[in-house]
């Protein structure tokens, strides 16, 4: 919960820092330090309790789960700044402001992982969304960026409208904005509440780009400056999921037996559309956009089964997905050519990065020995553990078949890197050795967590 305060303050610090600093990389340095501080603060809170205690029981409540997710997202953010800082500097002139926005987003993430009141959810989502609209349009010279920002903004606002309608109806049904009020099972079910829950579900599905509310995702991810796509697709998306899960943690019983069907249909649509459409893509960036939809389909399993397995799974998923996607995007931003052909002969060009990328891609595809496997594993296991293995077996099979389809487009990256030769010999990427080691380190973490996922999960329980 301290994250909200610290992140807000640091956002302000960045804003003013921007006035003082003349050099772009100073801003990056400052931002990195500040994220490190955030991370340290959050770690402290996780281990020893909050530094400031905010007494707002009806608004926010910390949970170990939320803190762990914050920790993961902050670590991912640190990695993100370290590997992509240079690219943020290249987007435009307002580097400090970009960082400020990123910190504001972290404040929003802090809210999303700790809210207990629909108002806070609304504010949190908006605090995340509004800076993102701006970041999407940050590359003003690029028409794609403008288009993406406009699309994102209009559709985002529309979904806000839907969400608000949902909140209003829930209020009509329960007379409260508190999660606990409508989470109570066995409370009289009003139609307002059910309709409201559905609408809010739709709005959240929009945020995490679940089908059929995902349409903004490919266009926005494609159009936004690649560094910010990386941020959006990973950290923000996971935060959206946490908000989603918190929202429905106890509410799934309200729609009684139909909840699983609703989610199952959304999951299957998401998986199918995400995976199948990704097959066709020629641009790696756009492929990653569809892949993020596809991964969202898997993450939705946590909502589907609503049990501890799902929660553990989402923790792993957060780590797996953030690490891998940030790594791939970091390399992608250094490339001139975002198509698969651009990766031809990459293994010769950058052997170490190629290995790291391969590991990350394998992780995204869910191959064992990478954390991506366990994240998918926990998702399927959650559904089985919840007792849906029989009735919804088709969903599990579908999910697994979609995972197999995903191998198709992920492995095209590996194929390009390792088995195809570039048309003309290319020099190494213009990156520092530190960058290479960082990406490789991330890949190593992916493998280590793939062998011992408990190392991460134990933080949920100690």
């Amino acid at each position, binding site marked *: 919960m301290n994250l909200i305060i610290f992140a807000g303050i640091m956002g302000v610090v960045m804003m003013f820092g921007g006035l003082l600093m003349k050099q772009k990389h100073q801003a990056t340095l400052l931002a990195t330090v500040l994220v490190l501080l955030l991370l340290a603060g959050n770690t402290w809170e996780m281990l020893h309790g909050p530094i400031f205690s905010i007494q707002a029981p009806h608004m926010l409540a910390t949970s170990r789960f939320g803190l762990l997710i914050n920790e993961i997202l902050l670590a991912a953010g640190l990695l993100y700044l370290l590997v992509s800082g240079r690219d943020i500097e290249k987007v435009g002139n307002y580097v400090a402001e970009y960082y400020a926005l990123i910190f504001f987003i972290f404040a929003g993430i802090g809210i999303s992982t700790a809210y207990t009141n629909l108002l806070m959810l609304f504010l949190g989502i908006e605090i995340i969304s509004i800076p993102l609209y701006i970041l999407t349009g940050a590359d003003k010279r690029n028409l794609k960026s403008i288009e993406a920002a406009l*699309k994102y903004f209009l559709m985002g606002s529309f979904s806000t409208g839907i969400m608000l309608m949902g909140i209003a109806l829930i209020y009509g049904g329960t007379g409260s904005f508190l999660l606990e009020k409508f989470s109570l099972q066995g409370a009289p079910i009003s139609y307002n509440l059910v309709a409201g829950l559905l609408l809010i579900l739709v709005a959240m599905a929009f945020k995490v780009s679940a089908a059929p509310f995902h349409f903004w995702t490919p266009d926005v991810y494609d159009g936004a400056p690649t560094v910010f796509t990386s941020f959006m697709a990973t950290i923000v998306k996971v935060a959206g999921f946490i908000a989603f899960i918190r929202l429905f943690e106890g509410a799934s019983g309200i729609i009684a037996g139909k909840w699983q069907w609703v989610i199952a249909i959304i999951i299957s649509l998401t998986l199918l559309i995400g995976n199948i459409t990704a097959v066709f893509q020629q641009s790696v960036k756009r492929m990653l956009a569809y892949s993020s939809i596809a991964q969202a389909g898997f993450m939705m399993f946590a909502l589907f089964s609503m049990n501890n397995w799902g929660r553990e799974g989402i923790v792993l998923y957060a780590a797996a997905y953030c690490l891998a996607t940030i790594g791939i995007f970091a390399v992608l931003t250094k490339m001139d050519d975002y198509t698969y052909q651009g990766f031809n002969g990459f293994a010769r060009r950058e052997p170490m990065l190629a290995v790291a990328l391969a590991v990350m891609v394998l992780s995204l595809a869910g191959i064992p020995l990478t954390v991506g496997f366990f994240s998918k594993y926990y998702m399927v296991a959650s559904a089985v553990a919840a007792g849906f293995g029989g009735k919804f077996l088709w969903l599990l099979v579908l999910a697994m078949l979609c995972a197999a389809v995903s191998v*198709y487009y992920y492995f095209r990256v590996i194929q390009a890197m390792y088995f195809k030769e570039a048309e003309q010999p290319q020099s190494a990427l213009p990156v520092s050795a530190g960058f290479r080691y960082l990406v490789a380190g991330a890949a190593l973490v992916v493998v280590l967590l793939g062998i011992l996922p408990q190392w991460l999960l134990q933080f949920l329980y100690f």
Partner: protein
Amino acid sequence: MKFAPYIPLLPLAGFLINGLLRNKLSKGLVGIIGSGAILAAFVLSVLVFNQTLQGETAVLQLFEFIKVGSLTIPFEFQIDQLTSLFLLIITGVGFLIHVYSTAYMHEESDSHFARYFAYLNLFVFSMLLLVMGGNYVIMFIGWEGVGLCSYLLIGYWFKNTEYNNAAKKAFVMNRIGDLGFLIAVFWIISTFGSTSFSAVFGQLPGQFSTAAITGITLCLFVGAMGKSAQIPLYTWLPDAMAGPTPVSALIHAATMVTAGIYMIARSNMLYVLAPASMHVIAIVGLATALLAATIALKQNDIKKVLAYSTVSQLGYMFLGLGVGAFTGAVFHVMTHAFFKALLFLGAGSVIHGMHHQQNMLHYGGLKKWMPVTHLTMLIGCIAIAGIPPFSGFFSKDEILIHAFAANPVYYVLGMGGALMTAFYMFRLYALTFLGEHRGDLHHHTPHESPKAMTIPLVVLAVLSIVGGLVGIPELFMNNGHRLESFLTPVFENSKQYLEQHAHPSHSTEWMLLAVSVSLIVLVILFTVRTFAKGKESEEATGLGKLLQNKWYVDELYDGLIVKPLLALGTVLNNVIERSGIDRLVNGVGRAVQYSSRQLRLLQSGNVGSYILMMVLGIVGLILLVFYTRL
């Protein structure tokens, strides 16, 4: 008896030495090693024979070969009278043929020469395993081993594709039979729980269903059909003449092809309990004897005539087995080994002398160049035609008499076959040795073969003459049939279950003998007169053409079995595999790509349509939750 296991080991050693050192050894050394190994084996066989002659038999368990659950298949040898007789035939005739080969194959290069002897030794090894094996599995090892050697030796001149095809055909046809054999073995295992002869026969007659026994025996007979070239699996044998002639003599006349007879004689206990199988064997044997004889009538290739003759003679042996004349069949195996080996080696000598010309129409009048060959061949012809007191007479007569006892029709048909045998053998003799020479004398002058070839001929000729004396029928001499009394321990148990036929009276026997011998002599005289003049054209018409083309059986098989199977293979490969299964598999991939192309169109780039989808999604969800029952 202790040294019996060394009998097969000797040729195996010969095979290994000649095979591994084939580039290092000289031809002389190779010949000595190859023949020496067989000679040593022969000597040991004689010792073994001596012991069995005194009624000593043994089952030697060497080591545990296969042990699975309750089933144990030891690597065991069974040495008894039947075995020792075959040992003698195999090693004896084998040795002669080895000696013969040292001269016949002398034109080959060193390493090929060694390869040839290695194969021959391997063959003898396998054949010995076959006859010594104490259970059906060991027998099967030899059974397939001889098939392999036959394959290797038929395709010995591997540059020639036709020879290779013949080799392949032999192997595959043998394999068809082997499958029958294998199934019989499985059946035996499931019925008797063991494959050892002693254990299996020891349980008989027991409470076994006739159906099972009949099934087993018929399956075994299928194996025999393949190995001993019976209808319908006989067509490989004539083609097998592609191999070097000594090989034909050894494998495709004297030894391997009689494996079927050995096996059935060995399994006599089973067969007597399955009369239906016996009938089948008799009929198939007789049919084969007649069919092959008719084909032999019009063949012009000297080896082909002999080959069909072999098929025909094997048919007689099966006839004998079928009518319960086990001793007669074995007797005929023995005499046939002598005179057919002799004939083949003689033919080989002729071919050698004629510089690998095998068409009899180009022979004629060879007796003046090749006196030894001529004389020995004549003896062979007489023996096979069944003129007393040559060996063939006694053995064939024994079979035919038994056939008469079983069914006079068998006798009449068998007699017809015998007449045809006389006809084609003397046709061969006359076309080859009598009359004017029809070949081109300017290029090649026929010559007599070297000593290494003629001596075995002479030895075999002597055996062909006197070989029959071990089985002089009761008709001529009381207790003359030494062979029968020798083999009694093998067959005595089964005798009581044999279908009992009234044995023809002596007077009937005398009459039959007189008629048959005189008919044969008549045929011989007619044949020699006709063909000494060389009256035979290349082109035949009518029935002759049918016979010359072997009743078109090969073509029939080709059209009925081979081509459809190949076509089926092609269909499976091109249609089912490529356009069916694989297409389906690839189709899944293609369907995904297709739907990918279609689904991306949803992503129209148009905010209005995106939001439209969202609204429809909301509508759908509300409908789902409020208005459906799940």
